[in-house]
């Protein structure tokens, strides 16, 4: 074992074995990655957004690559909370994975229903409320853009769980500090920043949007500088841990998020390109620290030097 301390705390005393997690919707239910990656080596796995009932998702095309990024409009296709509980969760437990359940709903009652249905289960480290999906008609951004609605959903879920509660925010707001503070005042233990940016690609020959739904969420390296700036801003404004998400493909990207104040990070779209990436980044972060005499990864968190 390396002598570097990799553990980080992300709300309510939850200790992760290292700060590298995988982002919701980019790591399936974890099990798809099992042939490529030791699930137990990761700081955590945030599973695909779970809704009270199964969802079919949007019609295809659901994806299009963009310069250094990708637009997706999956539409939260998922098996629903009941099948997640009976079919997926037991397997994830067997693999020794640290599981964070990403929760999606149209309204307050949906979020409460999913968390209630899972509260008694073992093998769940935290809940992450997705208050930021751009790809569904109802809920999603409507809740995610309203500080009042964010506070309301967070507080309602807070009532029904004793587990750490993370709230995932959209970047598509005028002032992210307002929505971040609303989540904290509702009882969030940590904030996940960021979900995708709304975007659009048009096929100029057919004059139609490439995605069937018209718009989708932009992810990948294209959004990384935007995400870094938002994490930097929010980490200074709130007292809870911030989890940095957006365009991570390498260990330098991980360190960049830590330096601006993220306590942990989630790797997203890059998992599709390299299913072993997240586990490798854990090892590379360790080596990065060792090479630079950093004994505890927490020394990096918020260690940004300001330019004079």
């Amino acid at each position, binding site marked *: 074992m390396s002598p570097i301390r990799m553990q980080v705390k992300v709300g309510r005393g939850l200790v992760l074995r290292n700060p590298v997690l995988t982002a919701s919707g*980019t*790591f*399936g239910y974890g099990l*798809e990655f099992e042939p490529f990656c030791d699930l137990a080596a990761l700081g955590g796995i945030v599973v*695909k957004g779970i809704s009270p009932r199964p*969802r079919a998702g949007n019609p295809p095309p659901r994806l299009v690559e963009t310069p250094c990024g990708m637009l997706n409009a999956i539409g939260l296709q998922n098996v629903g909370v009941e099948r997640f509980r009976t079919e997926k969760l037991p397997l994830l437990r067997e693999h020794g994975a640290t599981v964070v359940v990403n929760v999606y709903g149209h309204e307050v009652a949906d979020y409460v229903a999913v968390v209630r249905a899972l509260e008694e289960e073992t093998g769940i480290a935290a809940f992450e409320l997705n208050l930021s999906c751009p790809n569904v008609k109802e809920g999603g951004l409507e809740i995610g853009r309203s500080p009042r609605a964010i506070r309301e959903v967070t507080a309602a879920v807070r009532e029904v769980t004793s587990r750490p509660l993370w709230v995932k925010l959209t970047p598509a707001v005028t002032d992210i500090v307002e929505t971040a503070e609303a989540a904290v005042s509702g009882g969030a233990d940590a904030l996940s920043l960021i979900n995708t940016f709304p975007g659009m690609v048009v096929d100029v020959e057919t004059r139609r949007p490439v995605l069937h739904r018209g718009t989708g969420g932009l992810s990948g390296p294209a959004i990384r500088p935007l995400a870094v700036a938002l994490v930097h801003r929010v980490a200074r404004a709130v007292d809870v841990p911030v989890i940095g998400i957006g365009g991570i493909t390498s260990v330098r990207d991980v360190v960049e998020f830590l330096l601006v104040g993220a306590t942990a990070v989630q790797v997203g*779209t890059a998992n599709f*390109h390299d299913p072993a990436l997240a586990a490798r980044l854990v090892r590379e972060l360790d080596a990065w620290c060792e090479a630079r005499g950093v004994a505890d990864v927490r020394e990096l968190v918020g260690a940004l030097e300001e330019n004079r």
Partner: protein
Amino acid sequence: MPQDLRARVLEQEELGGGCFRMRLDAAPIAREARAGQFVMIGLPDPAETLVRRPFSVARLVPDTGEPEALEIVYKVYGRRTRQMTRFRPGTEVALLGPLGRGFWIPGEAEGTEVLLVAGGIGAAPFPLFLQRAGKDLAGRTTLFLGGGTRDDLLLVDWFRERCGEVVLVTEDGSAGERGLVTGPLAARLDAPPRGERVVLACGPRPMLRAVAELCLARDVPCQLSLEERMACGFGACLGCVVERRHPEGEFDRYVRVCTEGPVFDAREVLP
């Protein structure tokens, strides 16, 4: 079990009609690959090729015996395939495969007659089919190879050497029959069968729709190789779905091309 390898480009050749053949040093994938399966290809750094792209495993090298390399055959459409034409021998690619469910031959033992239907670059999975089929089955196979013009018909000489019969069709009549590939296919399906028949088709959606209709109307088993935009290739992103023909419930409306396909029974999906 799919493997994620660093593979070197061994050679590239322009085939005409905007199509290229690329040989890759990927023996572990080649050994496992079945006709209709595919690989995801990108450069090693995800920041360079954020999503890998799917290509059928077209052919194994050498032609018989233990495979040492595999080939893909691709048509230049946009930015990525144009970039691929610049890969030189020695270029290292990140190669994941073999992926998906390939073609299957019902009643192989009973002398089934196989009708392959290819539209343009849709010929890509069929060399591997013939390599895996063995002499007897290949001899009972007819390939209907269609395209817009003569240059769109790929690997014609290679197919002629290995396939019982090759029927060429072009829209402009520059090679073989003039018209669409479904013309001679329909004629064959309406002729008295020699035995069991199965149709395997790969090509543009309108062609697949027409082939599916011909076969469904005549109760001929038909397998379609479908394409949809992919980000992962192994079932995780849920990006690559197509619609089921007969969904059982609201949630089962879609199936993933990369995992449940890319080859589907024509009765299962709406191409």
